[in-house]
């Protein structure tokens, strides 16, 4: 196949992944926690040392 076909395909696929990427983040944040999962605080004692910045718990603390 010619090169421009490949480039077109890759642009389409990458755009698809980009859209899924943004959508998935927004959708994940918006879905509410299932019941009974609010009390997970006790388990994460190591949160202070955790370097994770995408952690939803760290956002809540801010």
């Amino acid at each position, binding site marked *: 196949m010619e090169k421009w076909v490949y480039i077109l395909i890759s642009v389409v696929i990458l755009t698809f992944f980009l859209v899924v990427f943004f959508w998935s983040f927004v959708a994940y944040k918006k879905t509410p926690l299932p019941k009974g999962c609010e009390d997970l605080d006790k388990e994460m004692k190591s949160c202070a040392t955790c*370097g994770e910045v995408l952690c939803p718990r760290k956002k809540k603390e801010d």
Partner: protein
Amino acid sequence: MKSDAIRRSEAKESFLSGIIKENPLFVSVLGVCPALAVTRTFEAALGMGFLFMFVLICSNVLISLLKKIIPEEVETPAYIVIIASFVTITKMLTNAFLPELYDSLGVFLSLLVVNCIVLGRAEAFANKNTVLNSFLDAVGNGIGYTIAICAIALLREILGTGMLSFGKVFTFIPEFSLPILKAVDASGDIIYDYSLFIFSNPAGGFLVFGAILGIIAAVSNHKKTKTAAKKRAEVAANKAMEVKA
């Protein structure tokens, strides 16, 4: 509007905190993966530190410039895309101008995309502060991280191979080695060799890093007990004065 003095002190604060008080590697213990992997030689660590600072500065400045345009729900994915683009640019530049550095860093140059420090400063600082403060924060953190990994690399290379080699990664410097724990004379015979090979190994990286963190914790604990004792003495002295009066 903030007065000039406040702005200057804020700027100074954001710059200095990244170096000592909130050193990203030694205090916040972030970005550990490259810190142990590229610190086998001093030169590689220095190179990694510079590239890290470059990526951090670029991403902090751009994110601070765009902070009013990016809506809040898509913050995190947008930052990831921005950081990934800068890392790709850095990779290409490094491959072109410093190919030995590119080879020795390997995958860890790409892993700057998911480096906790870069993403962390973007989310915690750059989207709330001015461009100048974000820039200074990036420079400060970059310097702090570079100093930290160079310290580890210095220890590992001296203890592990006995010599500090230059010129292997930054090939524009002529190649030479400083013999410290191990000396090799002109014909390649070893004059003396006190190096411990374990430190060049991955295991040695863990040990050196753990020891450094332990020393830092000991020093800060000592300081804490000192200030606590001082405070208690003050409170006791105040109470004594009150009783007298």
